């Protein structure tokens, strides 16, 4: 038993190195692909090269005759046992939802869709035989791109009669949370400022490090699925709901998982096929995708066109915001596919006091890879739109972009504040975060340098971009999710097991895939229970171990899962108090609990929590009215989201001759409430920033007109590495605005960097060339796009901001009208 006095004063707030890192980094652990079971077979998928086609025949003879092939199966070979891929969030009652079979028998709707599976004794033999499966297709016209889909001339699913899936609307006048947008816009047209823009959120690929992998073992009492997933609990529920196997017969394990970013928040065709094949053959099977398959067939993210109208008075006080989104769902409505843009609905008003707001989202179906959550899910899109618009408004009014924000933001003494979207922000201090960011960034000096460069017409111009973001995270209050027609709740569960030797196992229903839960949760338990950090083991990701849980996404694990853990620990202490009072022969009222020990006030008598755990093991001496255990569990359903915020400042250099952009400085000051482990927070912020910056500058998934993914490898889908980024200046305010709705006072940080950074970067790029008459550059801001914007401004000689919206459907733009993807 470890002595409690060895424990440092407090664990919370310490830069603990992550205890899980050694095994994760060396790979000496149970990644799904490392799992090998006796008699296990391997699967390879046959995928459609066409975006839209009828399957006319599948000849499997040659493949079946290939060495060590055990079975070749197509959609026709399965009936209901294959189940279906579900959409858990129909956003409107009349949403048009195409049926989504994991392996359709008749028609494929995107390039990369699975039409047959080969099962063999080795992965290589399965792959070889997959090439021998002869599939004949009748190609159908494919619809690619939002604009084409909206015309309904070519249908992604002819039987639906339209590509328009659902229209979701929020209107502050109707909801009673604000006034009427149309009236405000009309007023502003005559006596104020109206800014109209179309912004495009390009399609992105989550590109997690570990490709998806699944193993299914149908032997034993429960059928076990190991999967590289973020959501073992939701998977178990969905498997039971769609394949007819009782939930009690299903065990799902997410072993160590190498990243997800929302990309593994999915119930995938591959998992469902592995499930069906293992059951059919009564043999364990494994499937691990190749990187090419991952880029093509794992869900994509973002892909919206935003049509925006911002109305303000002449001083730049915003009077209304109207948002219309067209969001590309791809070929099917994935698990929470339609809901992602809706999550953004509540965030377009951001940190501001807008009196009137209207949001419409039209979801459309196309013959492309289905889209779903990607880090930030809905909130980066919203933040991008509003933070770009606020910069445009500042330019229009002729004031500094920070000044225009301050004129509109919620002041720190105004919290709690109910927004025009109907959310109650509990706490925040935008003034403090902005002041610190500005100082650390050296804002005034960089502005001065910008002016100098402009004045001397330097080949390299400097731009400064601002993003003062907030987000709603910690998904989520279950009742709120219910009111949005989401198919599940947002609570979380935890239990604490006090082992006989005084060590502690805690079980969480969240499912880490790189976040560092084992370390952060151990710190929380160590402090709260008063035991050494090293004595706490965090268990997760196995439905046999953690029977209740809603997994990890939406920056929820700490703020929801951590809070459930705190409540479970408090119950342990309550139960232990009863036993302590019996053993110490003292009244419970005379006991103090500190540093893992009950002491009798005014005496030197005491008993450690570890001794009490041992006492429940021996059971030799305990009160009659006590159940012989101090273990406890708790389910926590948050009463509100939480609202981290921050001020991000970015300086970009633009080479006006080549269009090349280069980051000069990036400062962020995030207010995320209390911080459990600053090192982990820094990791989340750094990684998040890079992903957001990558959307601004590098990443874009492009399909050609036929629906083939052109950016199908990392040669064309550009992920940045450390060599492409700079050292970020990461700040936090000294006195954070703590979350008032959880006891730890924490706010989510998993998505913050991604949400905030994209507009900061694009604002900086645009700011660098705004004096040339440029007010927008489409993402990613490739050198070619920047150069063309500069060339066009020279040709037109325009120095005024054009009054109408900037069209984003320029002829020849990738993913829109034409196919070359060349950008022009």
């Amino acid at each position, binding site marked *: 038993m470890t002595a409690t006095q060895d424990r440092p004063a407090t664990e919370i707030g310490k830069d603990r190195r992550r205890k899980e890192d050694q095994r994760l980094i060396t790979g000496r652990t149970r990644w799904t692909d490392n799992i090998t079971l006796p008699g296990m077979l391997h699967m390879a998928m046959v995928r459609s090269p066409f975006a839209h086609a009828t399957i006319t025949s599948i000849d499997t003879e040659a493949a079946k005759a290939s060495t060590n092939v055990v079975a070749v199966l197509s959609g026709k070979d399965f009936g209901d046992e294959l189940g279906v891929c579900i959409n858990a969030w129909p956003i409107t009652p009349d949403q048009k939802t195409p049926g989504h079979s994991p392996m359709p028998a008749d028609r494929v709707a995107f390039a990369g869709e699975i039409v047959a599976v080969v099962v063999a004794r080795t992965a290589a033999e399965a792959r070889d035989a997959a090439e021998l499966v002869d599939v004949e297709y009748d190609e159908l016209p494919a619809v690619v791109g939002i604009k084409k889909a909206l015309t309904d001339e070519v249908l992604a699913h002819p039987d639906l009669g339209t590509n328009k899936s659902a229209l979701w609307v929020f209107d502050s006048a109707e909801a009673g949370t604000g006034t009427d947008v149309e009236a405000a816009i009309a007023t502003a047209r005559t006596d104020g400022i109206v800014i109209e823009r179309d912004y495009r959120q390009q399609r992105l690929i989550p590109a997690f490090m570990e490709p998806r992998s699944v193993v299914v073992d149908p032997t034993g009492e429960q059928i076990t699925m190991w999967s590289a997933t973020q959501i073992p609990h939701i998977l178990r529920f969905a498997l039971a709901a769609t394949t007819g196997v009782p939930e009690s017969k299903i065990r799902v394990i997410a072993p160590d998982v190498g990243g997800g970013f929302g990309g593994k928040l999915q119930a995938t065709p591959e998992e469902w096929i592995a499930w069906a094949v293992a059951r059919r053959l009564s043999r364990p099977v494994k499937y691990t995708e190749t990187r090419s398959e991952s880029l093509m067939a794992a869900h994509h993210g973002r892909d919206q066109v935003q049509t925006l109208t911002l109305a303000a008075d002449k001083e730049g006080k915003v009077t209304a915001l109207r948002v219309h989104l067209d969001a590309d769902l791809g070929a099917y409505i994935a698990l929470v596919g339609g809901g992602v843009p809706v999550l953004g609905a509540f965030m377009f008003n951001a940190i501001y006091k807008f009196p009137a707001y209207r949001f419409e989202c039209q979801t459309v179906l196309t013959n492309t890879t289905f889209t779903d959550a990607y880090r930030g899910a809905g909130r980066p899109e919203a933040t991008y739109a509003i933070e770009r618009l606020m910069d445009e408004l500042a330019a229009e009014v002729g004031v500094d972009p920070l000044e225009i924000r301050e004129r509109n933001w919620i002041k720190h003494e105004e919290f709690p504040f109910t927004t025009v979207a109907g959310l109650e922000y509990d706490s925040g201090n935008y003034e403090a975060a902005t002041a610190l960011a500005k100082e650390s960034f050296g804002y005034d000096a960089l502005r001065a340098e910008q002016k100098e460069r402009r004045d001397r017409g330097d080949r390299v111009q400097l731009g400064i971009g601002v993003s003062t973001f907030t987000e709603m995270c910690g998904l989520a209050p279950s009742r709120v999710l219910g009111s949005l027609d989401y198919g599940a709740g947002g609570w979380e569960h935890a239990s604490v097991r006090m082992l006989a030797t005084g060590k502690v196992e805690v079980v969480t229903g969240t499912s880490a895939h790189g976040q560092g839960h084992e370390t952060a949760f151990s710190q929380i338990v160590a402090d709260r229970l008063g035991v050494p950090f090293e004595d706490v083991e965090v268990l997760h990701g196995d439905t046999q171990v953690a029977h209740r849980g809603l997994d990890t996404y939406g920056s929820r694990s700490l703020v929801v899962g951590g809070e459930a853990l705190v409540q479970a620990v408090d119950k342990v202490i309550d139960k232990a108090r009863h036993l302590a009072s019996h053993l110490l022969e003292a009244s419970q009222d005379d006991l103090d609990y500190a540093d893992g020990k009950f002491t009798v006030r005014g005496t030197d008598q005491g008993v450690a929590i570890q001794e009490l755990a041992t006492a429940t093991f021996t059971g030799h001496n305990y009160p009659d009215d006590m159940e012989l255990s101090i273990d406890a569990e708790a389910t926590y359903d948050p009463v509100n989201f939480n609202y981290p915020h921050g001020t991000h400042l970015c300086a970009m250099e633009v080479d006006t001759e080549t269009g090349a952009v280069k980051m000069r400085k990036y400062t962020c000051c995030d207010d995320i409430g209390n911080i459990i482990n600053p090192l982990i927070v820094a990791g989340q912020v750094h990684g998040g920033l890079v992903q957001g910056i990558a959307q601004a500058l590098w990443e874009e998934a492009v399909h050609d007109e036929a629906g083939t993914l052109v950016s199908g490898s990392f040669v064309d889908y550009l992920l940045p590495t450390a*060599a492409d980024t700079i050292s970020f200046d990461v700040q936090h305010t000294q006195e954070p605005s703590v979350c008032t709705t959880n006891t730890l006072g924490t706010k989510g940080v998993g998505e913050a960097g991604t949400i905030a950074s994209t507009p900061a970067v694009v604002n900086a790029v645009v700011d660098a060339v705004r004096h040339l008459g440029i007010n927008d550059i489409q993402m990613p801001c490739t050198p070619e796009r920047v*150069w063309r914007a500069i060339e066009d401004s020279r040709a037109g000689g325009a120095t005024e901001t054009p009054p109408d919206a900037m069209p984003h459907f320029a002829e020849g733009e990738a993913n829109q009208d034409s196919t070359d993807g060349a950008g022009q």
Partner: protein
Amino acid sequence: MIPVQFDYLAPTSVEEALAALGQHGDDAKILAGGQSLLPVLRMRLNAPEVVIDLGGISSLRGIRDDGDALVIGAMTTHHDVRDDSLVKEHALLLSKAAAEVADSQIRHRGTFGGALAHADPAGDLGAPALALGAQFVIAGPGGSRTVDAADFFVDLFETAIGDDEILTEVRIPKHTGWGAHYEKFVRVAHQWPIVAVAATVRGSIDEARVGLTNMGSTPLRATATEQALAGASATEDGVREASQLAAEGTNPPSDLNGAADYRQHLARVLTGRAVLKAAGA
């Protein structure tokens, strides 16, 4: 990412390798550093029955002084080309270009000969080799022949090397004392060039050689620019007119990284920069 099954041969001499090539013909593929071949095999874009690994032939590795030329063995890695003192002294441009190939891991595996034999128009070594007037020594069943750079690069991924031949070494005429710069334009660090310019100059500026990467289906030489640079002064104004000629006769691709007209613009801008840096200006 599992290649189709193949047999693996590891000859220890060029003769042995040629004999194996002769025996298997079309069904065989030469393996050098594998940095281009392995991705092709793993993506199943090619499925040779036999892979002949040159890694065991020590005579193909290394750099030696041969009077008025340097001789670089085909199996010399990018890393070694970059760091070699003979190369730095007599063909600085090659050292500079090799330093820009991919990343450190790939430079330790990928080879000079492999990269040139692969003849990817976006490869970083073709344009410098062309600019320096390299000569390619190719061994075949009937002995060795030497091919000039101008005739070596035939088309996209196509060279003068026959199916039954092996590139054994590359002779680089010495450019002792010439200044050099390789200006590579990329969006992320580990990328193949969108456009790159290889420039080497004698004096400032008595004579210049300029090669262009990814401006056509083979590496190209900016001959008009070279001519205009002879006798020009190494100043922005001095090279501007010459670099404006850099895109003449080029036929660059259009892809996600840029359309042809943008690449031509880049070629002009980057040529000016490369020449100035090569001249130490």
